[in-house]
Each structure stands twice: as structure tokens, then as C-alpha cells.
């Protein structure tokens, strides 16, 4: 992986698998009594969140700290942005302080791509508009792989508001690149105007596809969609597309139930279903830190071969960084 992480489609299958492989190591690091390695010592990672997201910001912040990076948080709500400063001026100001990476969340699609053109720092997209949330897709793929060993040939249903979902766009690209068959399950009003960019099937009935799924991935249903006349009511949405207890019973025993959070219990997922053993929603959150460690390490670190050997915490870090100079890839 090189450069920035703006969209899943920027990555080859090999690069996706590399992130997942490195994540294995980071999970191991996270399980140590002192879950910290010096891999990014001296590097500075800034989070620039134009949209509130405590969980993603904390996840990135924790990931950076476990790699010993210095972290800064640019709190947009209390900053010069409120005084009308442009994104470009903000990023140039932050960059002048000396940074290595900026983790960006913005409500408008494309802002991380714009920022990447204005800075020499590595840009990591932490969610932009309806466009992409690549680390979410990576942690989702990692979570699935940790249960199934591989995504090859898996049948994954992504259910709900695909149209407005950056999670869905990222997941579609990650899952299909890793060999899974993806079916989008939604009423036509909640699908993108075209699905031609992707290799997916479409269904307007959850009941039709439920029995075949290896993974049932539920998207958050936002209440404002009702006022846009996209669905008549939450009640009708739940009746047709909610993972109710009865529907969850029809899933295969080993089928995984996933959700990016935060959940609307009782809407897209029944409260009881979210707590079933095959619902891996909290695992997704836990894996989020390790995946983000892997991403930051691969984008900022000395190279994958400099990774601390699994199970040997004492040798982690700076010593192995020396290897990189001789083994630099062309």
C-alpha cells in the first residue's frame, strides 16, 4: 500500500490482503499487557474531523498511540473553520506544524481526495459523505475473514440504505475484490441510481435472499429518510427489511450478522438479534483499532518486513527498522 488511503478501489486484492495480514499482527500487539510498539515513534498523525464521530476518531487515535505516533486532534467545531477558514487553508496551516498523516472525516464526498492534492502528508479517509469509509470496509473484511478464513465465494447481503452509505460503497468494493458475491437488498428508493460500477446483484426482498447468506450486513436506517419520501414509515421498512428474530432464525447457523454501528435496535435489527452469538458487531469495533494500526503502519511505517515478530514483544520496533534501508522496494 502506498500514498494515501482514499477509497477501497485504489487497492489491489493483494494490497487488501496485505492489510488484513498485517492486522493479524496488530491484533496480537493489542493483546499484549503493554499494547504498544515503537513503529511510528516520531511520526505525527492528525485527526481532522469535520463531522462528529467519536468512535472512529477514538479508534484512529488509539491505533496511532499503540504505534507510538504523536497524535493531534483538530477539533473543527471550536476552531477557525467556524470563522470561515477554507479546508485548504486549514490543511496548509496544520501541515506547517509538521505532520506525517492526516485522518479526515467530512460530510462532503471527495474532500479527502481534494486534501490529498494540497498536502504532502499521507491522507487517510475516515469517511467522506456518501462516498467511502475504507477502514470500515477493511475491518469488516477482517472480521469476516477471522471467522471464515477467506471471503472467496461467500454470499454477503448488504441490507438497507445503500444509496446514502459510504460504508456500503466501501464494503461492496472490498468484499467483491476479495472474492465474495455481494447482493444489495433494499427498496429501489434506497439504492444508488446505478449499480453498474460494481459487480453486485440486487434484490428488493430480504426474505428471498436470507436463506442463502453467509453474512447479513445491516446498514443504519436514518430517520430523515422518511421526510425525503424514500420509505413510507420505519414500521414498513422494518417489516420488509429489518432483521427480525423470525428472519434471524432463518439464517444459517454460521451466518454472521454485522452492523457498522450505531444501531437502531428495533428498526434495522431486532434488539435480541444484535445480542446473538453470531452477531459480531462488537468484534467489528475491536478489530477497528487493529485494522487502523495496520493501515497507519503500512502507509507511514518502515515497511512490512520491519514488523515485530509475532509473540516476541521485546524485539519490536526501532532495531528492525534498519532492515528497511537495504530492502527498499524499487
Amino acid at each position, binding site marked *: 500500500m502506498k500514498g494515501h488511503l482514499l477509497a477501497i478501489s485504489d487497492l489491489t486484492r493483494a494490497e487488501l490482503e496485505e492489510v488484513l495480514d498485517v492486522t493479524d499482527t496488530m491484533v496480537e500487539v493489542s493483546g499484549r499487557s503493554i499494547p504498544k510498539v515503537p513503529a511510528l515513534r516520531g511520526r505525527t498523525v492528525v485527526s481532522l474531523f469535520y463531522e462528529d464521530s467519536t468512535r472512529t476518531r477514538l479508534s484512529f487515535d488509539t491505533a496511532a498511540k499503540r504505534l507510538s505516533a504523536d497524535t493531534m486532534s483538530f477539533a473543527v467545531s471550536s476552531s477557525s473553520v467556524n470563522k470561515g477558514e*477554507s*479546508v*485548504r487553508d486549514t490543511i496548509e496551516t496544520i501541515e506547517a506544524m509538521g505532520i506525517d498523516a492526516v485522518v479526515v472525516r*467530512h460530510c*462532503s*464526498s*471527495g*474532500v479527502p*481526495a*481534494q486534501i490529498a492534492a494540497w498536502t504532502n502528508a499521507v491522507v487517510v479517509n475516515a469517511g*467522506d*459523505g*456518501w*462516498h*467511502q469509509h475504507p477502514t470500515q470496509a477493511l475491518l469488516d473484511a477482517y472480521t469476516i475473514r477471522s471467522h471464515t478464513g477467506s471471503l472467496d465465494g461467500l454470499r454477503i447481503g448488504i441490507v438497507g440504505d445503500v444509496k446514502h452509505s*459510504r460504508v456500503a*460503497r466501501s464494503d461492496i468494493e472490498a468484499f467483491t475484490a476479495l472474492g465474495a458475491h455481494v447482493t444489495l437488498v433494499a427498496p429501489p428508493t434506497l439504492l*444508488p*441510481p*446505478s*449499480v*453498474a*460500477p460494481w459487480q453486485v446483484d440486487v434484490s428488493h426482498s430480504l426474505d428471498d435472499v436470507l436463506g442463502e447468506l453467509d453474512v447479513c450486513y445491516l446498514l443504519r436506517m436514518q430517520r430523515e429518510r422518511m421526510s425525503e419520501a424514500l420509505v413510507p414509515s420505519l414500521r414498513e421498512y422494518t417489516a420488509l427489511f429489518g432483521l427480525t428474530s423470525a428472519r434471524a432464525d432463518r439464517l444459517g447457523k454460521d451466518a454472521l450478522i454485522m452492523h457498522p454501528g450505531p444501531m437502531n435496535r428495533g428498526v434495522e435489527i431486532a434488539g435480541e438479534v444484535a445480542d446473538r452469538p453470531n452477531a459480531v458487531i462488537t468484534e467489528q469495533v475491536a478489530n477497528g483499532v487493529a485494522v487502523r494500526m495496520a493501515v497507519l503502519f503500512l502507509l507511514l511505517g518502515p515497511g512490512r518486513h520491519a514488523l515485530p515478530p509475532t509473540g516476541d514483544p521485546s524485539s519490536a520496533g526501532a532495531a528492525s527498522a534498519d532492515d528497511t534501508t537495504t530492502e527498499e522496494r524499487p
Partner: protein
Amino acid sequence: MSATNGPVRTVLKGGTVLDATGERRADVLLEGDRILAVDEGLDAPVVLDASGCLVAPGLVDLHTHLRQPGREDAETVESGSRAAALGGYTAVLAMPNTTPAIDCAAVVREVLELGRASLVDVHTSGAITVGRAGEQLAPMAEMAALGVRIFTDDGTGVQDDRLMRRAFEYASGLGVTLAQHCEVSALSEGTCMHEGEWSARLGLPGQPAEAEELMVMRDIALARLTGARAHFLHLSTAGSVAMVAAAKAGGLPVTAEAAPHHFTLTDACCASYDATFKVHPPLRGDADVAAVAAGLAEGTIDAIATDHAPHPPEDKERPFDQAPPGMLGLEYALALALTQLVDGGTGMTEADVLARLSWQPAAIAGMERHGRPVAAGEPANLCVVDPSVRWTIDASGGASLSRNVPYVGRTVRGKVRHTVVDGEAVVVDGEAQR
């Protein structure tokens, strides 16, 4: 300076005259603001070399955002007129979405006054409704009395059916033309590009072609009802072109224009999230681009109009969904037309392109001193174009105060050598003279 025996004479020497009457080898002798003679072997004290060039009536832009009054940081009448002259234009029609809007005699007078000091002949449109708010008819008669012939709320379409019907009826009594920016806001609000594969992939809210087409359909119906003249601004979809073709075949007094970007660029350009490619109506898909070019070739679309829409970099660097729509066009339209339409296999000739850039738009706007034949006694509003020059469009934005150029790096054919406005050579050898 002035000669004892009358005004200084200038000759455009060695070119090929091309106008609505045809094409012929001839020099063009100018005196004062008139053409004195068109013949071979003419001479004068001042010689402008036209060898290898087409000498044609000056271009006429039906759709220019000069941004004055209100956004003099983006463009002024003066800077926009310089860009126009460099693009071969001798007349432009200013759009009324200024601040304040050009919706009454006072603002019309201000723009015309600014235009008198500029490099080209500046005409202005007037708003159909007060403040372009779509609620109350603007005083069209007082603006028409100052010479306004085209009324439009450009930047937005008049949404209300009843109000638009009344506007058509009222306009027909004044003998003026209503020009519509066709966009049904209920289908376009909150959108920033064309709805399709690219908007799906990019996660940007899109508007369907039907947002434009529904208003084209309505206005054709209202033109039929009222008998008023309707002009369709910047058509961008295959469906719109087909409806206008049918309306014309049915004998309705409708005309239409298309912008260079709509026969050159597609919505795939938005993949960079560079808001330079954001424009209303939005860049469409390949089929629509082909339909617009075909509409121009078949004559369904009467005019190429730039929709020159300057915005300063700080506005265009905002997030794609928040940036203002619009792109520059005045200095690129002719070369894009020659490259995309003549060389692009639509069957159009250089004469066809000039018809759509000069005499046809002049007729639509009632500009009697422009788009005239190149003949003795006619006003000396001319452009001299070297059609063989290939050049690469740069990011400078030319004479515009803005730099929102969506064609950077594109190699095009055809360069303006001289532009003559009312007998004054305002552009000589590709350089503005003031």
C-alpha cells in the same frame, strides 16, 4: 493622428471571407465603424495580416456571466469583455444573476454603461421575475425600452407554471424572447452532478436528465399555448434536443443553444472531485454529449453559447457539493467547436460552426449590428481566425479574473488572430489592444 482626408483606413488582407452568404477570397477594407469594400487587392495605411485566416462576422455570445455588479472579484464587464474579444466575440449578452439582479431599468443602465467602456458590444438580458425569485414579474417593459430583448432568470428556471404562462403572454406583447434555464428544482435541489453511474460511484447527489427535460416539455407546451417565442438555454440532454426538434417541426417559434462543455466533457470528469467540472446543467454521459453535437449539426440547436461563468479559486476549491457551478468559456468556445464538431465527425463545416457562433445567435438576440454579411456598408464587427493553429489550453484562465478552466491540457484547433469591434481592432495578433 487622424488623416486629413477622413478616418484612417484598415485592411484585413489575404484572408478568406466566410459569412452567411458563403465563402470567397477577398480583402476587407474598413473605414470608421463600417466596411468600405470587400474585394481582392485592396490596400490601406493600416494592414492586418489575414493570410491563412477566415474573416468572418464577429462571434455573438448569448450567455455570458459578467458578474458585475456584485462579484467583481470573479469578473467585471471590462475583464469579461477582454476575454470575449480574445475569443473572437464582438458582442455578448450578459446574464442577470448578478447582485443585485438585472431586473429593472436602473441595473440595466448600469451594465450598459459599463459596457460602453469595454472592448466588445455588451448587451444585457433582464430577469423574468423580481430578484430572479420566481414570484413576481419583473418590469419587462421598462427594460425592453432600454433595448433588452432576452429575458431569463438564468441560474434557475421559473418553477411556477402559472407565472411562466403569464410571463410568456406578457413577453409576446412586448415582442421580446424568454430564455429558460430548464431545471425543475424539485428534482434537482441538493444535487451537484448528473445522476448516473458516476454519481453512484462517487457518492455525490445527482440530478436526472428529466429535471431539465420536464421544464423543456412544459415550456414547449406554454409556447404553444401563448404563441410566445421561447429560447432554451444550454440544452444538455438527448431528450431535450429531441423535444425541441419536434417543437420546431411543429412550427413553434422556439430556439435553442448549447454550451461547449456539453459537447466536449462528460460526467466522468467529476471523478477527480475537482469542482472546476461542476456546472448547471451538469456534465452528462456520452450519449447526451453525442446528442448535443448532433443537435447542433442538424440545426435543432441554433447557437453555441458559452455559459462563461467565472468563479474565483477559493470558491471552486470548496467541497464539490458546496462549490458554485460554472466554468469559463469565452476564449475556448470557437476552438472547441472546430475541434469537437468539425474534426469530431459530426459532419459540420467551419461555416456551420460560425453560423452557430455568430449570425444565428445574433438573430435570436436581435443584435442588428452583429452577424451581418461581410459586405460594403455593413458594421465592421469581425473576427479573423486562423483555423490551422493547434494550441494547448492552459490553466491561466486567459483574460478572465478567474481560472476555472475545465479544458486544461487539451489540444484544440483554431485561434483568433484579430477582432474588430465597430471598426476598432481590439485584438491584433492574438493580443488585446487595451
